[in-house]
């Protein structure tokens, strides 16, 4: 068979498989009546409006966005000095901390969730909303850590040396040369952590599941009592947010490079 045709068919099969569930959810989200029917009957965007008008869904949306914004910021605050130190200093033992930062992401999430649950319960602060911020920051610190480490390796050291030769101290070099160069990597690290925190279920559920309702927790709770169309509209809304954020990263950054697609000689 023609190679091009074969390639096209392969791509089409994967595309249909990846898109099908979302297409059906998008379909049921515009049903006019409150029923789970596909193809949709009638057309209505009322269920999208409900995300913002219904007090329960709106509260969950706000809780999720606040949690994601704060925990991603904290994750960047942890990752930035760490990756700077690893780039600036020769200290092989400090790589232990890089490993600690990556570990929660590699291990099954339920382990981090359970560890944090026992920890917060032992301290007696189980269920406090701020514990979720710290929990998510630790859980997702991997993402800014990886993007920032990549950012630092991409800095041409001769630029930094030039600045140092002209008499700039560490702080000045950091502010005038290093930070502007790694800013795109910092922003993408924040964005990755933000989107994943927005969608995270198990860590949020185990730490603050009984006191705060984030959107994934609310969807799951609603799912247990049967179907409401708002679940479908919220899901599509989240897909749209993720697609928007990653498109912006692709538009203003180098997405293939962020995902590790660089020649081995310049790493």
């Amino acid at each position: 068979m023609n190679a091009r045709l074969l390639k096209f068919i392969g791509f089409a099969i994967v595309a249909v498989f990846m898109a099908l569930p979302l297409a059906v959810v998008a379909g049921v989200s515009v049903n006019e009546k409150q029923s789970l029917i596909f193809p949709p009957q009638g057309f209505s965007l009322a269920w999208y409006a409900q995300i913002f008008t219904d007090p329960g869904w709106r509260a969950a949306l706000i809780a999720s966005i606040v949690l994601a914004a704060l925990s991603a910021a904290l994750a960047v605050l942890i990752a930035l000095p760490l990756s700077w130190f690893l780039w600036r200093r020769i200290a092989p033992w400090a790589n232990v901390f890089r490993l600690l930062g990556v570990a929660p992401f590699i291990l099954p999430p339920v382990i981090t969730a359970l560890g944090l649950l026992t920890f917060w319960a032992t301290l007696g602060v189980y269920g406090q909303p701020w514990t979720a911020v710290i929990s998510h920051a630790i859980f997702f610190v991997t993402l800014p850590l990886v993007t920032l480490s990549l950012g630092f390796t991409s800095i041409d050291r001769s630029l930094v040396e030039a600045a140092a030769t002209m008499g700039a101290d560490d702080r000045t070099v950091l502010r005038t040369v290093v930070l502007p160069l790694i800013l795109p990597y910092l922003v993408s690290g924040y964005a990755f952590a933000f989107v994943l925190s927005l969608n995270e279920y198990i860590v949020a559920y185990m730490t603050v599941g009984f006191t705060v309702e984030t959107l994934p927790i609310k969807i799951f709770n609603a799912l247990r009592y049967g179907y409401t169309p708002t679940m479908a509209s919220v899901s599509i809304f989240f897909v749209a947010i993720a697609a928007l954020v990653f498109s912006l990263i692709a538009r203003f950054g180098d997405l293939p490079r962020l995902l590790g697609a660089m020649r081995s000689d310049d790493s």
Partner: protein
Amino acid sequence: MRREPPRHLADYAPLTFPAAMLVVFFVVPFSTMIAVSFFRRQQGGFYTPDLVLENYGRFLSTFFAGVLGFSLMLAVMVAVICVAIAFPFTYLLTKSSRRVQIVWLVCLLSILSLSEVIIGFAWSTLFSRTAGITNLLVAAGLMAEPEALLPGFGAVLTAMVYQAMPYTILVLYPALVRLDPTLLEAARTLGASPLRGFFDIIVPALRNTIMATLIMVFVFALGSYLLPQILGRPQHWTLSVHITDQAIYQSNMPFAAAMAVFLVLISLALVGLTLLVGSRREAT
């Protein structure tokens, strides 16, 4: 400004905040969990410090052996299916134009970041009687009546493959992008068809990558905790689901912690294996 070893105490200053955060909120909770796995359970969801092995003793039951066997089998199936589809797909993707690659990467990242709750909900809709895929088959005249395809093993497996597929592709992507294009060109010059070149040259050259990816996807699939609950029956529950269940609903923290420690050991052993495989030079 060259890289230099830290000389003064002040040189360590930037490290203090990240190190403190990671130790206090990752190492300490992790150790707490290990400690709790040896504690004695009290009625009503409490536990007292102790050093008992009975939480680990429960592993020796046939029920637990069944759960473990099922979890491992499911994760192996997900890993094999994902790599079998993702490897040729990713290879073709890296041969596409940069624009096509970026569109695919954005879509895959969007799906990868989706909540397991949303993926579970989407597949439960697709497999439902009223809005599901069987309605399409009925419309096409292939089936008489629409029917529900869940709960069941097929539904769990399909959704887990769906969840792990973007992850698999993104893990394979860097290795395949960096693959030396002259390898295949040489094979083509010597008269091999593209398909033969792929199977005889590309696949053997990347066998370490394939092995490492299989293990990473396996560990990823072990972590799935909601899809078996939403799409399967209780006999399809994996170790991750049972850990959540014991911790939250059965209020048996020590047993949940013991199972989690066990899961860590399995995952760490496999991740260690990946590093070992990865450290050997690729035969490119």
